[in-house]
């Protein structure tokens, strides 16, 4: 019963330094992740962002960095304001020639109560992220 652990791997056609910057620099994070007021890859640094299924239904995500190994590993806690439970997200980078393998691990989501998770229903999340990806990808392809 390990299905509450999410582990995804993705090979990026970019050197490890570029991927590290993309996951730790707030200006780059804004382009693909979340628009944060500030981000510092330092243990103990806290940040927050809102995300949710619609404009009316937004959830405050609270995160605190717990592990930083430059160019190798970044881990932070991930929880929801007003809900019990805590999860951890880690990004691990591995050089594969001039490409980079990113392993994303999200553990502890089983600690969130059902009430909170209903708010993050698949269709809800999908609607928001589909728009972001399709629009940004489309813009990118049309520019090329």
């Amino acid at each position, binding site marked *: 019963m390990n299905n509450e652990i999410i582990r995804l791997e*993705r090979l990026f056609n970019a050197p490890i330094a*570029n*991927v590290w910057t993309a996951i730790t620099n707030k200006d780059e994070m804004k382009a693909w992740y979340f628009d944060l007021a500030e981000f510092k890859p330092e243990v103990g640094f806290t940040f927050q962002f809102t995300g949710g299924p619609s404009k009316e239904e937004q959830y405050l995500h609270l995160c605190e960095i717990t592990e930083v190994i430059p160019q190798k590993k970044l881990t932070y806690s991930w929880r929801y304001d007003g809900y019990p439970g805590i999860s951890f997200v880690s990004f691990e980078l591995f050089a594969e020639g001039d490409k980079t393998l990113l392993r994303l691990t999200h553990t502890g989501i089983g600690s969130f109560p059902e009430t909170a998770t209903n708010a993050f229903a698949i269709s809800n999340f999908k609607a928001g992220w589909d728009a972001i990806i399709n629009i940004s990808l489309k813009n990118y392809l049309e520019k090329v």
Partner: protein
Amino acid sequence: MRRDVFQAIADPTRRAIIGLVASQSMNLNAVAENFDISRPAISKHIKILTECGLLVIKQTGRERFCEVQLKQLNEVSQWVDQYKLFWNSKLDALETHLAKKSMSKNKRSRS
């Protein structure tokens, strides 16, 4: 206190119990024999699992069998899928971002 499936799987022993009885129903003694912790402790976990609706206890003659309720687990699977989808979307966006970045860098170095 209301219990739900997420509380059930929050504990490693309870996850192991579910794993054990997932493929076949087992009597309570057989379940307990698989663990180093005390019989009362196992009983407590099983009680929580039944309260969460993940297990039902069926009496067959003198024996009591644990049977898993897979329908309840679907709830978990869907929920994990939500996060998987979310992260896959994010990694797609990261891929696009990195491609764009290397593209603009190449443009700069060419000009």
